Every structure is written in C-alpha cells, then in structure tokens.
C-alpha cells in the first residue's frame, strides 16, 4: 500500500472489523473487571456494593482453587502428550501411499466435526457407561468387572475423550507438515547410514518441530477453557473441576457473580502466562 490515499482507504475498510473485535473483547473484559470488585449476589440481594480485592482473596484461598489449577494443567498436558504422540504416528501412517487414502483421511478428521457436547455424550453413554457401554461389554466378555470410567477413572476418561476430539486436528497439521518433507533428505540420510528410527529422530522430527509448536500453542489455548466435556460427563465431580469449571460453579451454582468474575481474571492471567511462554518458544521455532 504505497500511497497516502490507499493507506487511509485501507484503514477505513478495516475499521468495522477492528471496532467489532475490540467491542467483542473489551466489553466482557471490562464487565468482568467491574463485577470482580463487587459483591454481587443476584438471588440474595443483588448488588451489595464495592468490596475491593475481597473476591480475589477468597477465590484463591478457597480449598478448590489449587486443585482446579492442577486439574486444568493435567488435562492440558495429558491431552497434548497423547495428541502429539498419536498425531505424529498417524501422520506418518497416513502419509504412506495406500488404497482409499482420501476416504481414510476424511474418516480421521471426522471426530473434529462432532460438537464437544455430542462427542462427550457419545463417549459417556455408548463407551463408558458401566452397564451398557461397549467397554463394559468388552470387560465382561473377558470376565472382568466393568470399570466405572467416569467415577473411578474420571481424569483418564476425560483426557481420553478430549484427546479423541483433538487428535484429528493434530494429525491434520502434522500430516501437511510431513508431506512437505523433501524425500531426498530421507534418502540422503539413508545413504548416510541412518536406520529408520534414526531417520525419524534426526530428520522427520526436527522437520515437524514447527508444526508441533503450532499444535501445542493452538491446543493449549483451547484446552485451557475446556468446559462442555466436563459439564456433560462428570459435572465437575470426582476431581475433574478445572479452573473454568470452578468459575462456572461460582457464578451459576453459587450465584456469586463477583467471586466468579475474580476467578475469570485469574484465568485471563493464567492464559497469558502460558501464552507468553508459548509465544517465546514458537517465535524461536518460527524464525529458524
């Protein structure tokens, strides 16, 4: 955009989008900040005035705060590990020439199209139900006592469900990355005496590093706010209460908007800390 005229035209054309986006972000942010300094109980007297940092203090000192942070991090970490490891393996598998490649690739991506609520319900009722679930039948077939997945192994169950949803995304990004790997590099490594595993370690994996950081970044952003899956399956019980779920409970179940808003501000801070870390790593990786 060279001329003064085209520059101001560009600004004018972008203005609606920028204003909309800013409004979209700023209004909720300011509302959250506003409520977080108030004692606001809609069903028990409404707006009861300013309370300073009381909400912030009581949110952190609550016995559920640190466990919820821990739960959040375990879910994010667990899902990241599973989706990346399986994603890399699946991407390598899908990159092999085979019959029906197109259909297989669509099938692999399919879980991503299922709404989180629906997929969590499907998992809860069709797979993990201790009486009628497929897994329960499988267990009984081998003469074992069916596992009550969502209560006995609540965290692993949740991680499995969420991983199932996000695996397609990771696979897709990694597959496109793997397809851009120059086959001559692998052949050169083969001639240089690197067996299959070393070729993977020294050539393929470094080539994928950029794609992997992108997957980590995007998934982390979305996984920090995971909600529907918990709401539908355990309802936050059995130690599956994440930070976002705790905020939801404070606002809607305890009807304490001020306390929930303070939690929301903590969530923003947590997300930003993670984002800064990730941007540094990604920035480093994207430069190279």
């Amino acid at each position, binding site marked *: 955009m060279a001329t003064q005229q085209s520059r101001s035209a560009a600004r004018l054309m972008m203005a609606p989008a920028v204003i909309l986006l800013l409004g979209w972000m700023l209004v909720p942010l300011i509302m959250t900040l506003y409520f977080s300094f108030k004692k606001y109980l809609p069903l028990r007297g409404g707006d009861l005035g300013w309370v300073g940092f009381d909400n912030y203090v009581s949110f952190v000192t609550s016995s559920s705060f640190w466990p919820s942070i821990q739960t959040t991090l375990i879910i994010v970490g667990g899902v990241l590990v599973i989706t990346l490891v399986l994603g890399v393996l699946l991407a390598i598998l899908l990159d092999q020439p085979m019959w029906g490649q197109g259909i297989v690739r669509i099938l692999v991506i399919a879980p991503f199209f299922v709404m989180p609520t629906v997929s969590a319900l499907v998992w809860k009722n069709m797979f993990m139900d201790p009486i009628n679930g497929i897994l329960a039948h499988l267990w009984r077939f081998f003469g074992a006592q069916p596992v009550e997945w969502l209560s006995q192994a609540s965290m692993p169950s949740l991680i499995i469900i969420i991983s199932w949803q996000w695996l397609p995304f990771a696979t897709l990004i990694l597959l496109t990355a793997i397809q851009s790997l*120059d086959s*001559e*590099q692998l*052949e*050169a*490594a*083969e*001639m*240089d*005496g*690197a*067996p299959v595993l*070393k070729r993977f370690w*020294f*050539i393929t994996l*470094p*080539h994928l*590093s950029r794609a992997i950081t992108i997957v980590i970044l995007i998934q982390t952003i979305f996984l920090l706010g995971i909600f529907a899956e918990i709401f539908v399956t355990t309802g936050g019980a059995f130690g599956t209460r994440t930070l976002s779920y705790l905020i939801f409970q404070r606002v809607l179940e305890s009807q304490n908007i001020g306390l929930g808003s303070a939690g929301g501000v903590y969530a923003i801070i947590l997300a930003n800390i993670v984002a800064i870390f990730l941007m540094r790593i990604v920035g480093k990786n994207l430069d*190279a």
Partner: protein
Amino acid sequence: MGQIELKGVTKRFGEVEVIPPLDLKIDEGEFVVFVGPSGCGKSTLLRLIAGLEDVSGGVIEIDGTEATTLPPAKRRLAMVFQSYALYPHMSVKKNIAFPLKMAKTDPKVIEEKVANAASILNLTDYLDRRPGQLSGGQRQRVAIGRAIVREPAAFLFDEPLSNLDAALRVNMRLEISELHQSLGTTMIYVTHDQVEAMTMADKIVVLQAGRIEQVGSPLELYRAPRNRFVAGFIGSPKMNFVEGEEAAKHNAHAIGIRPEHIEVSTTEGLWQGKVGVAEHLGSDTFLHVTTAHGVINVRVGGEMGLRHGDTVWLTPDASQMHRFDAKGLALA
C-alpha cells in the same frame, strides 16, 4: 576400490519397463557420466546403483562382490542429490559429520575429518552456519563434503549443478573435476547437459529410453558416434542431418555434418543458402542458414559480418562427414 559392474540390470515400474536388461562396467577411479534427455532413465539407473530403488532383475557388483540386495548404507557409495538434500536444522558442521555420527565414529576423528573436508572445499568459515544461510554453490559444496567424509568407494552425483546459475555451474564443474583428480575415487555423474558430460567425463554413457546407445570417451563419441541419436546429442551446436539426394551421393540414407565442419563463403561453395538468424558471440558466430536441404547450422570462428538475409555458400568438409543408414546406424 570402486569398481562397479552391472549385469543384465532391469527395472520395471509395474508394467512399464524403464530399463531393459543393461550391462555396464565402471572401472576404478573413472569419472563416468550418464547423459541423455529427460526421462531416459539415467537417474533411475543411478538410484539402482545407490540402492534407493530395487532392481527388477540382474546383478550389481561393487568391487567384485554382489551388492544387488544390500541396503544403500552398506554399499559404501555416497550420493550428492540434485536438491543437495542438506539437513536444514543442522549446522554445516553437523551436516558433514552426520554420516560419521551414524557410523559411531570417535568424536575426535569426526572433528578431524570434518575440518579436513571443510578445508578441501573452502567451507571452514561457514561451519557454524545453517544451510539456509548459504548460497547455492556453498550448499553444493556442503553436500559434497558430506559425501567426502565417508571415504566412499564411489561418488554418485544426480544432476548436481542443475540448480546453479550458469557462471557458478562452470566453476563447480571445474571444482568437481579437480576433486576427482585429487581424490582419484570413482565418480558416477548424471546430467542432461552434454557440455558437462564432454568436459568432465573419462567415459560417457549415452542413454535413451533406458538403453545404452554408446559408451566411450568424449572424443570417441564426438568423432565416431554409433548412431544418429548419439551424433545429434553430443556436440554443440547440434550436428546437421541432410537426407535425400545429397546423402545418396555419399551412398548413405543421411549424412551428418557438425556446424564447425562447414566452410562459409560469400562467393562460392557447394550449397547456396540465405542467412536466417546470426548469433554473434564474439569468439564465434552461429549462423542458421536456410538452404535447399533444410536449415543448416554453421559455426564460424571469430566475427563474420553477415546479417539476416545475406546469401552465402556452404561447403561441408567431406573428411569430417558422418554417414547413416535408414535405421540411423553409422556407416563405416
């Protein structure tokens, strides 16, 4: 070390026979160039020797021992790829050291060999850079360095200069030739550029559609091409072919005269023609002359003041004439 022999080597991709049974012997220390038009199977042949493709039939022997089913790493051959195939995330030093590291060589020895290769190839100042920060010629040298440190029985080059600009290509051509002189290792070099073949080779293998058309030294191929294909492929500008009456005078189906073996005169000669395009290079002048026998390319040493539309007479040098029969084979 470095003798390679192919016996009845065949390659099929599904139903298509890319390389019909082929025999070839490459002697130790030779610089052999596979040359041919695109799709003639020269790269496939190189990949068969390297072990990157499986042969469909026949035997490959390296230094007298059968290597047909050996994996590429075990054949003691090093390859320089067209795209260089450097590892982009490793420094130049690590790139060159990679094959040694894979062979679990002692780190001290690695250090020494890398330094040695780098000094041969003038890469010492660039050892800590990444391939992305190097120019085309430097990348090419890194790829060669990675091949050198393995001390292979033979080097395989797959069109290594085709990604370089013209000036650099001439330089690298010289460098590779010098490298061959100093190392004395067998080298197999694939190219579609006959100039590279002529300038670098001890032995040229001309390929067409997977078949070997002729094997010989550059000058043998230039002086005594076995058929019309070789005659037309080797030499620049291309050989002129004249069929019909003129050829019949020499008891042949077609005669071939190289552009440099035709005398040009503005006053008298055998064939009369009109100058079409005249390319003035200073050292030479290439004339495209339209005659009754078709367009004839002529190369004249030095500058000749001829312009488009001038009438000239051409006289081919009868002693340098090549005669071909109806099948395109050369007549003695």
